């Protein structure tokens, strides 16, 4: 088999099945102020939330599309052809047995209940617009840890939600944060009390099932002083010929000395737009880490951000992106050093194959008053074939001369000699490519919980797999 053939081989997407649609509530396609009010009414929300949603809707409606990134792909989004709310189960169950059968089977196939038993502190499983299953380990509940879906969070802890909601990502931040604020549904609400360490990760899994679906989960995590938590999320969707839209907002607050790690393995099918705003604020000596893997979707635009507000705080954004046929992963990181003695590290790895396009877009800034900051940015791209593309858009704005900045970028191609070397050790061309690709991603997978790393390697091997039988 010629090298080019192996490289052109298209991987198969494994999570592309869909269940029959058994909606209990399904809104008509399209968006208006009435749709926004209906969503809020359906959820019996406090008035402040309804009004916030409506304001956000008008902001979204009047705000133009971004004038950067992949504008032609963005222009193809038909907001009138999206369903903004769909519910397939009327309750969030605590026992998988009570979840409707089709939905339960889907999560079974995705391995969620199994993972829950083995290595998670809690799980929330969202299907379309609502969480269908939710659990948390009793000992954590007893220590005062709150882990709920966002809607339950708002119902049970309205004051806490009101205090922090939109405090990190205002709805005016960008067009899609406005959209999410207007129509959000589901997502996670987490509060970790002072000094509590949640040892095992909690997981959220997001599944879109319907065609032309919009999923707009909203996540808010507050880690109180000296506490720690690791949150992991995964997502998949069926493969359809028409597009779906996923637009989430995630806000993290790490109070003094707290540590939040947020890991994502994004594996949407290639017909999903993934336009997400993720940002955290780190107070004194707090630490926020984003570990972000982007494998799927049609167009992803996502730049996990950290505002280093407190002295001695630390931020890390470690990300990988795989862009295959018809895909554009426009990903990166943003870090703002507002306080002295803050440190940050960005590691970005991207692979493009079969004409896919990967972009790294990064912004690191140091404010004039922030003394002795340390910044380290490394972005590497690996291009597997001709016609695939990789771009880097790094920005550094350093307004304090005491800052120590390091920046490295590399773009490399898989060389025939590397492949030949591995083949001479008994590995087929595809195995050789998978070894090179997995190796390239290794600094990232090392940071993931083992189960996720295995999953990611499996996904990558699948992407490398040829169609030659």
């Amino acid at each position, binding site marked *: *088999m010629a*090298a080019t053939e192996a490289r052109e081989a298209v991987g198969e997407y494994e999570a592309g099945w869909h269940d029959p649609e058994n909606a209990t509530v399904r809104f008509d396609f399209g968006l208006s102020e009435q749709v926004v009010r209906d969503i809020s009414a359906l959820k019996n929300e406090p008035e402040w939330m309804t009004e916030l949603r409506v304001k956000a809707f008008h902001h979204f409606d009047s705000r133009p599309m971004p004038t950067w990134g992949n504008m032609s792909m963005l222009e193809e989004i038909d907001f009138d052809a999206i369903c903004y709310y769909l519910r397939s189960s009327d309750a969030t169950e605590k026992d998988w047995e009570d979840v409707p059968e089709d939905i339960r089977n889907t999560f079974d196939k995705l391995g969620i209940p199994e993972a829950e038993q083995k290595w998670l502190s809690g799980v929330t499983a969202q299907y379309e617009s609502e969480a269908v299953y939710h659990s948390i380990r009793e000992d954590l509940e007893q220590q005062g840890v709150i882990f709920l879906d966002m809607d339950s969070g708002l119902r049970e802890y309205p004051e806490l939600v009101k205090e922090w909601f939109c405090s990190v990502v205002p709805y005016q931040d960008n067009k899609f944060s406005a959209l999410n604020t207007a129509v959000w549904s589901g997502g996670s609400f987490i509060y970790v009390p002072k000094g509590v360490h949640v040892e095992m990760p909690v997981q959220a899994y997001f599944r879109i099932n319907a065609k032309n679906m919009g999923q707009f989960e909203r996540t808010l995590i507050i880690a109180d002083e000296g506490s720690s938590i690791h949150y992991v999320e995964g997502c998949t969707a069926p493969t359809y010929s028409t597009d779906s839209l996923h637009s989430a907002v995630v806000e993290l607050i790490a109070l003094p000395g707290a540590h939040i790690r947020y890991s994502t393995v994004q594996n949407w099918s290639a017909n999903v737009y993934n336009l997400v705003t993720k940002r955290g604020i780190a107070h004194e000596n707090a630490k926020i880490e984003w570990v972000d893997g982007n494998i799927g979707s049609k167009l992803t635009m996502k730049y996990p951000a950290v505002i280093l507000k407190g002295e001695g705080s630390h931020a890390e954004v470690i990300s990988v992106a795989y862009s295959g046929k018809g895909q554009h992963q426009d990903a990166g990181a943003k870090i703002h050093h507002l306080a002295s003695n803050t440190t940050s590290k960005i590691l970005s790895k991207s692979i493009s194959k079969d004409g896919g396009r990967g972009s790294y877009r990064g912004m690191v800034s140091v404010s004039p008053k922030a003394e002795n900051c340390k910044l380290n940015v490394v972005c590497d791209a690996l291009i597997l074939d001709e016609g695939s593309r990789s771009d880097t858009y790094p920005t550094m704005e350093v307004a304090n001369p005491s800052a120590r900045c390091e920046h490295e970028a590399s773009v490399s191609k898989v*060389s*025939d*000699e*590397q492949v*030949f*070397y*591995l*083949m*001479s*050790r*008994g*590995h*087929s*061309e595809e*195995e050789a490519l998978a*070894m*090179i690709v*997995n*190796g*390239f*991603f*290794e*600094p990232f997978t090392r940071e993931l919980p083992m189960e996720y790393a295995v999953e990611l390697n499996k996904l990558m091997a699948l992407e490398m797999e040829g169609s030659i039988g």
Partner: protein
Amino acid sequence: MAPDKPVLEISNLHAGIDDTAILRGINLEIPPGEIHAIMGRNGSGKTTTANIIMGHPDFDITDGTVQLDGEDLLDMEPWERAREGVFLSFQYPQAVPGLQVGNFLRKSVAAIRGEDAAKGAEFRKTLKDAMTELDIDKSFLGRYVNDGFSGGEKKRFEILQLMLLQPKLAILDETDSGLDIDGIRTVSKGINAAVRGTDSGALIITHYSRILEHVQPDKVHVLIKGKIVKSGGPELALELEERGYDWLETEAENSA
């Protein structure tokens, strides 16, 4: 009893790259248990011969055959040849960042010798013994394949793979280059351990005779401009060391 088939048999091999001929009729036979050396200057076609036996895709074979144990190699992919028992110790081993040595060794042994050979206490013992023999530290297993290795480490790693993969035919391309005398002694131990007293064969490619002091070849062949112009015993290597290649070039030209 039928005589043993040669481990490697090359007949009338002509090959080149694009339209340039590099090998112009090579004949070579290595019987089981023998170590042969090919010597020659840079550009004489030594590395090309090694690459063609392994199946490098850049070369066009215009004539001739290459057989391993009586089986044609030229139609096989490189990994198939490896699984049949061909091993090449590269002159310039490639780095694969992120691929851990331990993991890679296990996968390669599994691919070539089967899953069972790559598992359990026996594999761990073979690995440990080979590493001791080659004076390789345990921490090596956690490093990335050839990534940031010194020249000597790369060569030791090639020989470690040779010892674990147990090929029928080991080709060693300039294994001595970039090694100090201790390094040569160490990798020679590994080569002897892998070939001597077995039915395997080895082909050592070099332009110095230094390594041949430690790995006694049964035969030495001199390659000039893509042809073997002289073959002899180990004493030929010493003669080349003393006299250089000029006299053979003149001889070759006169006979052409």
